[in-house]
């Protein structure tokens, strides 16, 4: 893509080519993980993959789409519930886990016409009410036995060792597929459209951006992604207690991961998920003070480091490992202005109004 007067638009840097390549290699190495990793490491990595999915989905909604949802646990729970229901109808247990996520995506599609017309805080709490309502309705199902819950018994057909490896591979495939899909979406036309909507819906609409259709794609992918995270969680824990799956703590975790990693940066939430995972491993045992720390950290980041850890690193060093935006370059290789990249400066322009 050539601009005028010796300017060119750069989308890849040599570093980002290397980093995408490294990620691909890492994926292959991780796929062979069960060959050389212990049982505990496999379990922990499976959890980390689920966190990365959740963080990436929430960041796509809030960081790129401007949609702060306090109710993504609706899809996390409904995905797990659908998997249990499908399994009880005789669907094979692993297909049921994937279909549960598809069902969550379908539910988010059905909701989108309503939910996406809500603004700001209305959307945030509206989604929370939706999650509460799903929770209550799922409790009505005799199979679930109210808050007592039930288990995905069909998983017992597999030995614990096999189950661990299968769950790991499924989680790895899920996180790779969802992160790649989100990356492709946000790098493409949709990424620019959705950020334009985030920054000013009326202006975007007047430029011909199809507001509802654009938001809907992000919302449905995020719904299916959170649903898949829910079914994966079900696969690892086997038991389904509605209050756990539909709990607002999932949103708290997602907010924490996205904020600390860097809201509106692509790499940030992945880093945030790793930070969250490490903090949970180190301090999770201290229970309530750990949660106080999570809440306080989220507040401090929202106020003083709105672009999170990754956003700060990116600004300081000009690093872009997984670029989704555009950079304007002078005919040489010198960068014209670090912050002139239209799409990626969204966070700043948001701060300005």
């Amino acid at each position, binding site marked *: 893509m050539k601009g005028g007067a010796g300017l060119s638009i750069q989308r890849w840097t040599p570093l980002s080519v290397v980093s995408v390549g490294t990620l691909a290699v890492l994926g292959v190495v991780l796929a062979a993980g069960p060959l050389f990793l212990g049982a505990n490491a496999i379990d922990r990595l499976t959890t980390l993959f689920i966190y990365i999915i959740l963080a990436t989905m929430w960041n796509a909604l809030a960081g790129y789409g401007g949609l702060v949802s306090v109710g993504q646990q609706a899809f996390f729970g409904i995905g797990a519930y659908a998997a249990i229901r499908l399994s009880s109808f005789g669907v094979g247990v692993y297909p049921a886990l994937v279909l549960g996520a598809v069902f969550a995506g379908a539910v988010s599609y059905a909701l989108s016409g309503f939910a996406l*017309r809500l603004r*700001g805080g209305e959307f945030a709490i509206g989604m929370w*009410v939706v999650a509460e309502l799903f929770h209550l309705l799922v409790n009505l199902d005799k199979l679930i036995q109210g808050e007592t819950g039930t288990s995905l018994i069909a998983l017992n057909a597999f030995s614990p060792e096999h189950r661990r490896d299968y769950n790991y591979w499924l989680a790895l495939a899920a996180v790779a597929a969802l992160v790649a899909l989100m990356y492709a979406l946000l790098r493409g036309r949709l990424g620019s459209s959705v950020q334009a909507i985030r920054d000013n819906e009326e202006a975007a609409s007047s430029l011909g951006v199809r507001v509802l259709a654009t938001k809907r794609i992000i919302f449905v992918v995020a719904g299916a992604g959170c649903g898949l995270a829910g079914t994966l969680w079900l696969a690892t824990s086997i038991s389904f207690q509605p209050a756990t799956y539909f709990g607002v703590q999932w949103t708290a975790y997602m907010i924490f991961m996205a904020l600390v990693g860097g809201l509106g940066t692509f790499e940030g939430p992945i880093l945030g998920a790793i930070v969250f995972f490490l903090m949970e491993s180190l301090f999770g045992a201290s229970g309530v003070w750990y949660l106080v720390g999570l*809440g306080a950290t*989220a*507040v401090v980041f*929202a106020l003083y480091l709105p672009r999170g850890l990754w956003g700060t690193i990116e600004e300081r060093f000009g690093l872009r490992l997984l670029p989704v935006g555009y950079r304007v370059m002078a005919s040489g290789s010198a960068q014209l202005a670090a912050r002139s990249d239209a799409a990626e400066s969204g966070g700043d322009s948001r701060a300005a109004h």
Partner: protein
Amino acid sequence: MIWVNQIVQGILLGGYYALIACGLSFMFGVMRIINLAHGDLAVLAAFLVWSIVGYTGMSPFLALAIVLPVMGGLGWLMQRVMLERSLRAGMLVPLLTTFGLGIVIQNLLFAYYGADTRSLAPAIGDLAFDSWSLGSQIYISHLAGLIFLVAVLLLGGLQLLLARTPLGRAIRATAEDPDTAELVGINSRAVYAAAAAIAVMTVAVGGTFLGMRATFGPYAGPTQLIFAFEAVVIGGLGSMWGTLFGGIVLGVAQNIGAQIAPNGFLIAGHAVFLLVLGVRLASGSAIARGRIRALLGRSP
């Protein structure tokens, strides 16, 4: 007759929802902030009152008089330290920071008070269970009647404050346009801080009555937030008397739902809320008028 009773009880319950919701409505009307820590602040106030009653044996109403300025100070501080900066950073940041604050409050309460649920009902004597009877099957508890009355007085008081006092005038001007308000000599930072203090004081009143009419624990806040938000939205976001109306609709729906099925209480409330939202979206009217004129019940 049982249905009439459910509706009467629903209206009274609506008074409680309006009471717990008026701070949320006020804060949205003035600052355009939906405070996700709203319910947790109410529960915090209930715990503070409970502690004072426990240590001194005084009446919860007297304890509330002590807690009110404390909560007002907290609201002022919250605005100055957190919300002011959040507001400058855009529409979404206040949601994130108040949600984080809510988590901090819940877990600090848990760390200090533990998991037990508490109630102020033992401290208010006969008021907790006395009632007036209307006919043979309808009873109105003194407490529910008092709560309804306090809700009406508080909403009316806020309305008068906004419409008639110099502070109210400054709040309205700042809500319309903080920069222009500054030009005519209004200190908009101070006005916002005062509005936040007032809002959180009303939350303290709501929280105290929550403690009298029911039990509460450290994690009771989010449920109160959801009820308050539902009342505010059903009544029209940012409208004071609308909040009372919304609370009544919510309370009646919940009680009718409970009469139909054991799980119906919450389901019916959420369903009515989503239905009202859906109908408003379909009819194309703006939900969040959010202007101070709407707060005063005038059409924008």
